[in-house]
């Protein structure tokens, strides 16, 4: 873990050719919507980049984010570049345990104070002093606050760390909160998703290594390059939505013809993520391609946002409803107008010609 040599050297040791490396850089540049010329700049910068120290803290989580990153892609370049950072502390991946593991964390925090990158997955319980999740006898809250102090930046990976995620779902028994609810004085990038797309994680890391800064973020702290558009806007089923062709059940003709899953509860229209363009499993597909609507997992409180199979909004059966409303409206209208006519003519009948006496009290 102490080897902080350049990335290019490490890649060569791992048998990754320069050609493969350049391909990766081009892919990153296009993913981050950078101009084509920047691929060379990324390559130059990455090749020279020293492995930054990274401390990965896992709190109330399911390890799905780590799984997403390491398993689904191994042994592709994305996972390798992740290997190319100096991952000085990571529960799941580290070989060490017990006091040795904790020591490597405190050592890294001391040695690279102010420079290390802090990655967090999982939400932080705050209820009852945060006792619902502890590591080595210390609460997550305590660990986060300690580690955040010396961090150059924090990357909140997954919806739990970004927005509280499933632990925060109603009734939120542990008082779970997001990293940004605790840490206020450090730059935080939220890479939401349950789990997030691996290429998005590596893309943000590549950006950090190349330009030394944070990417442009949206109002929820997510990199705009990946979260700038909705799933719906980039969905290959969008033309069916525009034509009003909707699957009504998961096995009807519409579903088989690949029509829009809006009425089956797809949250694509309100979900910002890169699934529809980057896709999953090495670019194989994304949930909608498998015939299931988007759950909206990269949005805050997605677990409590109504049922997964409930449409975002439903037009009422238009004709029946409109006819009913028209009939009811007309009936009320006729009733009111008859009453009004009666009242007005009564007022007319009661009219007594005004005289000069009527001008004064």
């Amino acid at each position, binding site marked *: 873990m102490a080897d902080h040599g350049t990335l290019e050297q490490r890649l060569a040791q791992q048998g990754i050719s320069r050609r493969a490396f350049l391909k990766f850089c081009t892919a990153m540049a296009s993913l981050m919507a950078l101009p084509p010329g920047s691929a060379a700049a990324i390559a130059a910068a990455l090749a020279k980049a020293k492995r930054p120290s990274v401390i990965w803290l896992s709190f109330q989580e399911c390890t799905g984010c780590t799984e997403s990153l390491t398993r689904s892609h191994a042994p592709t370049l994305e996972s390798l570049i992740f290997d190319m950072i100096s991952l000085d502390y990571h529960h799941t991946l580290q070989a060490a345990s017990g006091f040795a593991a904790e020591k490597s964390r405190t050592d890294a925090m001391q040695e690279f104070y102010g420079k290390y990158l802090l990655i967090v997955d999982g939400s932080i319980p705050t209820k009852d002093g945060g006792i619902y999740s502890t590591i080595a006898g210390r609460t997550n809250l305590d660990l986060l606050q300690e580690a955040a102090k010396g961090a150059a930046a924090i990357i909140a990976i997954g919806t739990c760390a970004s927005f509280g995620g499933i632990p925060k779902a109603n009734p939120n028994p542990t008082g779970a909160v997001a990293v940004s609810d605790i840490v206020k004085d450090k730059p935080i990038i939220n890479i939401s998703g349950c789990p997030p797309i691996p290429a998005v994680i590596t893309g943000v890391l590549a950006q950090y290594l190349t330009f030394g800064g944070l990417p442009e973020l949206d109002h929820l702290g997510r990199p705009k390059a990946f979260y700038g558009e909705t799933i719906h806007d980039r969905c290959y089923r969008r033309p069916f939505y525009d034509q009003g062709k909707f699957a009504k059940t998961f096995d009807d003709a519409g579903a088989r013809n690949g029509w829009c899953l809006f009425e089956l509860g797809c949250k694509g229209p309100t979900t910002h993520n890169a699934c529809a363009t980057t896709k999953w499993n090495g670019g194989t597909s994304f949930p909608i391609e498998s015939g299931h609507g988007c759950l909206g997992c990269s949005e805050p409180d997605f677990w409590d946002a109504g049922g997964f199979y409930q449409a975002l909004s439903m037009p009422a059966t238009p004709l029946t409803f409109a006819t009913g409303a028209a009939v009811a409206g007309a009936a009320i209208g006729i009733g009111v107008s008859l009453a009004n006519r009666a009242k007005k003519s009564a007022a007319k009948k009661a009219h007594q010609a005004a005289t*000069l*006496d009527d001008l*004064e009290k």
Partner: protein
Amino acid sequence: MSASLQKGIDVLKEVIDAPVASFFASCVHCGLCAEACLFYTETDDPKYTPIHKLEPLRRVYSREYTLLGRLGKMLGLSKPVSDDELEAWSELVYDSCTMCGRCSLVCPVGNDIVYMVRKLREGMAVSGHAPQGIQEAVKRTIEIGSPMGVKWPAIQHVIKDQEAETELKIPIDQPGVDVLVLMSSMEVINYPEYLGALAKIFHKSGVTWTLSSEASEATNAGIQIGVSDLAREIVARIVNAAEKLGVKRVLSPECGHAYMAIRWEGPNLMGRPFPFEVVHVLELLDELRRAGKLKMKDQFTTPVTLHDPCQIVRRGGVLDAPEPLLRQVVSDYRPMPDGNKWNWCCGGGGGASSIQEPAAEALRFKAFQVKKRQIEASGVNTMVTFCSNCRIVMEEAVDHYEMKTQLLGLTELLAAHLED
């Protein structure tokens, strides 16, 4: 005396009709009417927003004629319109509204706000909330025949004077003539030369005409205070006299509200079409001009500007006569900004000029500032108009602001330069 809140509310219930309902329902609260009202633009006080002046009427409409309003009334959720409220609104409905109709003209959804002010005044009047000045004018009109208390002998006096001035006979109670000429009391008292001017012009152009000893007053204070029953009585005098004399036409004098009263409200008040035609004096003069019967011997060379009276031009529809007539007699006409149908009111129409309270008077002067700016923008010191009420109100304001502006009546100006 027998005015009461109940009478007021009952009358409002009676006068609310389909147009009122649709106007209230379609108001989009854009506030354009405020910008169109001189009482708002000159004070910046939002209470003078025209649609706001109608709040009591809107409340009665809502409580009596809308579903939600009725529910609210039944459940006691809304308060009824009170005497105090109407008293507070008196200033908004009378002092600060001249019924000039600029608000109705600008309303983007076509709400005729003046139409509703006229209706709200019906309720205000019989609940005893009309200003005293207008009440007295109405009383004098009903009892004496003129809002200013002018009696027939006074008119006879003016007739004699003008006959001596013009050396022309002024006909009285002559049946079968073309035109029955009406006067406004303001003309009798302040501008008697109007009568002489008509005598000259009609003599020259061969129009046969007469005055009536039974109906000479053209103005209608009943409309200004908002009591249709009284307004009907006043307009009926003219209709009866005109029918008795069998004239073809009744000539409305230069007064603006008189034209509104006889030409537009009159037949509705009487509930039948008139067997004669009502024309404004300018319409008749323009007709003569177009027929080549109104030739000038010379022209008035002083630069002049023109004030278009609201009730004749914007609301009355006499849009095309004033300018050609003016150009007939003046050589240097300088139009003022916002002329013709967009003109700004003198500040004293709709009965406002008969309200004597100091606050109302001060407000009138304040509202006149817009006219003052218009006059200044025209860059001249002589302003022609064709409404005796506008003329009196503006002369007072000109004195108040110590301006040099001189006011002239168009009919007199034409007569003064008429070919011999």
